[in-house]
């Protein structure tokens, strides 16, 4: 029986009074409502545009919007920090449209991190352009643009909206068809700048070097307007990506309703082992309460599997409902059309609750929801704020509940929320000079225009790379110029997104063969192996055959009460030491990974009910790593030492991503009791991308911070000898002390 609807404010009151809920709340943080700060529309905005704004009811701007207009008009490249729903599109649409009214030949390029986002943003801009009644035209250019429309976009598009992948493989290599754009390019707009980090960011930084090179060839020197979510280093990120001087605009003038941030720690069910109730079950309970009160809610889960598990639970609430479901899942791997439909139904309120991975963290327009439940810490402070930002309408209060899992990082967050609340968010890192990525893009650039011997590629001197490519018969040098000398199309072989070129396509053969989704090959090793249970839209499928060669997984619908979880066996070899201080070393390694076996885990109880082998080829990765050697003297026995190694590795694995702003999937750990390289017990942390993307190197630099946090986690845990949430395993005797000693030793020798 559905209970009656309530407002968010009523719900908040109710939760405060509900002791079964409130006793588990470690901290109830409120962010006060903030009034809007306005500024007059700057004089640089032409009358024509001013009229359009007034007709739309905009008489004044938020302070950050006005500043963006002024700084851009003064000829600066800018990065604007814009939380969700702060009117960011005006920050770039106003300067761009102003310029085009003043100079009708001017062109602008808008870049959104994904195709989906590019399509979303278009409608708002279109309305403004239409209202201007001029000859301005803006077009989206992506893989879906028809060949007939493409010519029009190239020749007539004042504003071309696209994504970095399309710029990389569809525009730059065909620059001679885009002369009008490149000759007249005044502005490059980059939205969601914070997503350009890690491997993707490193690629995009190089795509930007190519873009600037082509612009220079055609005589234009565009300015950049960028927007970013809150991160520690927006200006640094913008400058590394564009290699330009950038003005930071970070005083936001948009209003915000009162926000309640509730830190919820599930109750302990086994004192001795320090085991708490499942965070997933608690998330389900809280989310159900909100949904039953008719409060539009978003639930964030960390993994695709978690999303599907939670979705299965929550859809129980609406079992008897007819027609399209009002509780849905959302994650990468759903087909684009499926996702567009979900976004639309979220905006118009047809969907009451959505369970999502961080896929909805991005600027996908789904409107503002009323409540948000986080199943576990999303990994970074920036992500946490972004996910929390999904809840919060301007006029009403909003509720965000963080439900901690038993992981050490989650426990750290729930017990010391100040760590999150006081701490500035992480910095986004990337390495544009990763050799593999750099060589890839120098190839693309050489295809686009021959390199001159003294030419630079961004801030890099490419000569050695050019000579290497000449020796490999990719380029040919004559008269101080390097010419492209192969019959291939380099951009086609280089993907900006992952090291793996192809995705595995998931084919459902229950009725007739139908593609229901896709997944990157690395994830497929552990999620789509033979006999795996693949969850999609709360339906269960069993993988009948993973054809790894052909990149296809054939699945069939089943109805079982378990899901599967796979293990990855890793063999690591050190190739070269780059820097060391005794206890820790940074260098290059070769990693061979192989999926070995999987476990069947029962729904509800989460107990292990069986296992099986996985037969898949191994994959080799050359990358960078930082490794730490432990001191054998602090262990009474071999078994102790092994446990200590596990504990330290576990702490690193959970805590390092917090300081490096990366996904836990970007940085892997592995341990060796007697390292083939150091002969000592060693913990390795390595970048998951060929050649490394600067994560393990940053870890080498910031190791003391991570070690300190690890020490605090263990020290502050109320358990006696160590428990899963601090040292990762159930300890005994003075085990906690042993781990702390190892950590201190590592720090002491730094």
């Amino acid at each position, binding site marked *: 029986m559905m209970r009656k609807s309530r407002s968010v404010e009523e719900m908040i009151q109710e939760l405060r009074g509900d002791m079964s809920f409130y006793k588990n709340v470690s901290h109830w943080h409120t962010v006060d409502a903030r009034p809007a700060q306005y500024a007059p529309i700057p004089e640089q905005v032409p009358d024509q545009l001013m009229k359009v704004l007034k007709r739309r009811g905009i008489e004044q701007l938020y302070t950050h919007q006005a500043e963006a207009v002024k700084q851009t008009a003064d000829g600066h490249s800018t990065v604007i920090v814009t939380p969700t729903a702060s009117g960011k599109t005006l920050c770039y649409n106003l300067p761009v449209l102003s310029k085009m009214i003043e100079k009708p030949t001017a062109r602008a390029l808008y870049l959104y991190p994904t195709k989906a986002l590019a399509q979303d943003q278009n409608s708002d801009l279109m309305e403004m352009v239409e209202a201007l009644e001029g000859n301005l035209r803006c077009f989206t250019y992506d893989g879906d643009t028809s060949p007939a429309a493409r010519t029009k976009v190239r020749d007539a598009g004042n504003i071309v909206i696209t994504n970095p992948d399309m710029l990389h493989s569809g525009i730059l290599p065909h620059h001679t068809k885009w002369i009008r754009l490149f000759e007249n390019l005044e502005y490059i707009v980059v939205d969601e700048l914070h997503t350009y980090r890690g491997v993707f960011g490193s690629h995009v930084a190089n795509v930007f070097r190519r873009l600037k090179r082509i612009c220079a060839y055609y005589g234009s020197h565009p300015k950049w307007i960028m927007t970013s979510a809150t991160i520690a280093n927006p200006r640094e990120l913008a400058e590394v990506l564009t290699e330009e001087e950038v003005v930071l605009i970070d005083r936001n003038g948009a209003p915000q309703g009162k926000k309640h941030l509730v830190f919820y720690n599930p109750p302990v069910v086994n004192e001795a082992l320090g085991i708490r109730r499942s965070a997933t079950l608690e998330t389900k309970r809280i989310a159900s309460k909100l949904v039953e009160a008719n409060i539009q809610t978003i639930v964030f889960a960390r993994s695709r599997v978690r999303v599907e598990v939670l979705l299965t639970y929550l859809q129980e609430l609406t079992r008897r409902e007819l027609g399209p479901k009002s509780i849905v899942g959302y994650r990468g791997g759903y087909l684009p059309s499926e996702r567009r439909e979900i976004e639309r139904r979220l905006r118009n309120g047809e969907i009451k609750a959505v369970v999502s991975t961080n896929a909805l963290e991005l600027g996908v327009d789904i409107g503002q929801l009323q409540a948000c439940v986080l199943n576990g810490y999303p990994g970074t402070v920036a992500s946490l704020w972004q996910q929390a930002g999904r809840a919060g309408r301007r006029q009403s209060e909003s509720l965000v509940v963080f439900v901690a899992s038993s992981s050490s990082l989650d426990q750290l967050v729930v017990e010391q929320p100040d760590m999150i609340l006081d701490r500035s968010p992480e910095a986004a890192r990337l390495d544009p000079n990763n050799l593999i990525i750099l060589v890839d893009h120098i190839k693309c650039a050489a*295809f686009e225009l021959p390199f001159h011997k003294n030419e630079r590629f961004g801030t890099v001197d490419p000569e050695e790379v050019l000579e290497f490519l000449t020796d490999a018969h990719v380029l040919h040098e*004559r008269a101080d*110029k390097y010419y492209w000398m192969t*019959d291939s*199309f380099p951009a086609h072989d280089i993907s900006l997104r992952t090291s793996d070129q192809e995705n595995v396509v998931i084919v459902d053969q229950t009725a007739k063969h139908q593609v229901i989704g896709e997944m990157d090959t690395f994830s497929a090793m552990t999620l789509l192996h033979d006999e795996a249970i693949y969850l999609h839209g709360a339906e269960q499928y069993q993988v009948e055959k993973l054809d790894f060669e052909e990149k296809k997984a054939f699945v069939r619908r089943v109805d079982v009460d378990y899901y599967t979880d796979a293990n990855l066996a890793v063999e690591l070899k050190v190739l070269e030491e780059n820097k060391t201080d005794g206890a820790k070393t940074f260098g290059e390694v070769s990693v061979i990974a192989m999926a070995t076996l999987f476990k069947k885990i029962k729904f509800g109880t989460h107990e292990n009910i069986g296992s099986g082998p996985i037969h898949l080829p191994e994959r080799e990765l050359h990358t960078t790593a930082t490794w730490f050697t432990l001191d054998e003297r602090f262990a009474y026995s071999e078994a102790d030492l092994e446990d200590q190694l596990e504990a330290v590795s576990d702490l690193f694995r959970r805590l390092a991503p917090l300081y490096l702003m990366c996904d836990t999937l970007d940085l892997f750990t592995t341990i060796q009791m007697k390292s083939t390289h150091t002969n000592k017990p060693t913990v390795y942390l390595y970048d998951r991308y060929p050649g490394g993307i600067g994560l393990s190197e940053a870890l080498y630099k910031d190791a003391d911070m991570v070690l300190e946090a690890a020490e605090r986690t263990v020290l502050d845990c109320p358990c006696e000898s160590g428990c899963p949430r601090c040292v990762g395993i159930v300890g005994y005797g003075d085990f906690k002390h042993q781990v702390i000693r190892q950590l201190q030793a590592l720090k002491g020798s730094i």
Partner: protein
Amino acid sequence: MKAKLSRLIKTKEPVESSRVTSPDEVEQQKWVEQGGEILTFEGEWCVRIHKTYPLDEVYHDFEFGEARQMMHRTEHPFFTVDLEPEHVLFMDTETTGLRGSGTSIFLIGFARIRAEQLEMVQYVLPHPAFETAFYYHFLQDIGDEVRFVTYNGKSFDWPQIKTRHTFVKSKVKQLPSVGHVDLLHAARRLLKPRLESVSLKAVEAYFGHGRTDDLPGFLAPMHYFQYVKERNPEILLPVLEHHHADCLSLVSLYTRLGHLVMTPRTDYGEERAHWLHDLGEQESALKEFEQLSSPSKRAVMRQAMLLKRTGRIEQAIPLFESLHTIEGYVELAKYAEHKKKDMALAIDYTRRAMELLEQKRAVLRQTIKREQDELEHRLARLERKQS
């Protein structure tokens, strides 16, 4: 010591020779030996190779000169050329890749019919750095207005020339105004049902002129890269031969396909008729359809529709009846309903169409929703009208 000495002695040898020649000069000399002519422009150079053939020489069954007559025949608009023969270039290129601004053309050539002879010209780009000279001379030679006869040139060779031209446009002439007779389209029209591939080679072979010892097209870039590295024109000879053969072949193929289309014969009649139909030449198409001895159902349907559209519905009726197809019965039902006002007859035709659809459904094992809906809708309307 010995090695050092011998090295010293060896290096002395060229100094003793009469004169020091630059690598460019050495290479140019080799081209001249191969019959090439060196053309220079602003410090760059390229190679032009020129050959002529008598107009009465027979190549692939046709005299070269026959192409000239074909250009002015008007029976089929596709083959008609609106300029004098000397502006018609049977053109082909060889490129370093398939797409993108970084793909360059290293060989352009064409055959053209002059007053007394067929002229065959090839332009070779000796190094990517010399594109200005290459395009300067090519454009200078072809004039301001040309018509290309090519094989896929409309969507490949010409756009690629445009792409590369942008890199040198400040120094060379504007591109000429052009028109295209792309024989790939003609070959597709006429031969598609008969051939698995309509590549130039496959089409030549189909007409009894299979090539032997010809360089496979995809190897051409490799030969070029090797040539650029070694500066030895001999490496490029197989490519030049292949390309030369392609251009000459275009001349004969143009004549051959033109004849196929314009000479009333029994074979290719159906393809010819469909082509004229798609070009909007209603009367000519109709004439072709009428002459077919064993037309396909598609041809009969089209013929009947043309008759209907041009006000000769009475002539179309027996054709529709002969078809026994869903579309045919639908047309008959329309005729019965609107012209004869005979609802019972219209209902009968509609039912026959539905029977056929049912058979189709049983064979395909899937529902054909849209067609089904249309027929049901029609039937309902007719039954309403009847009562």
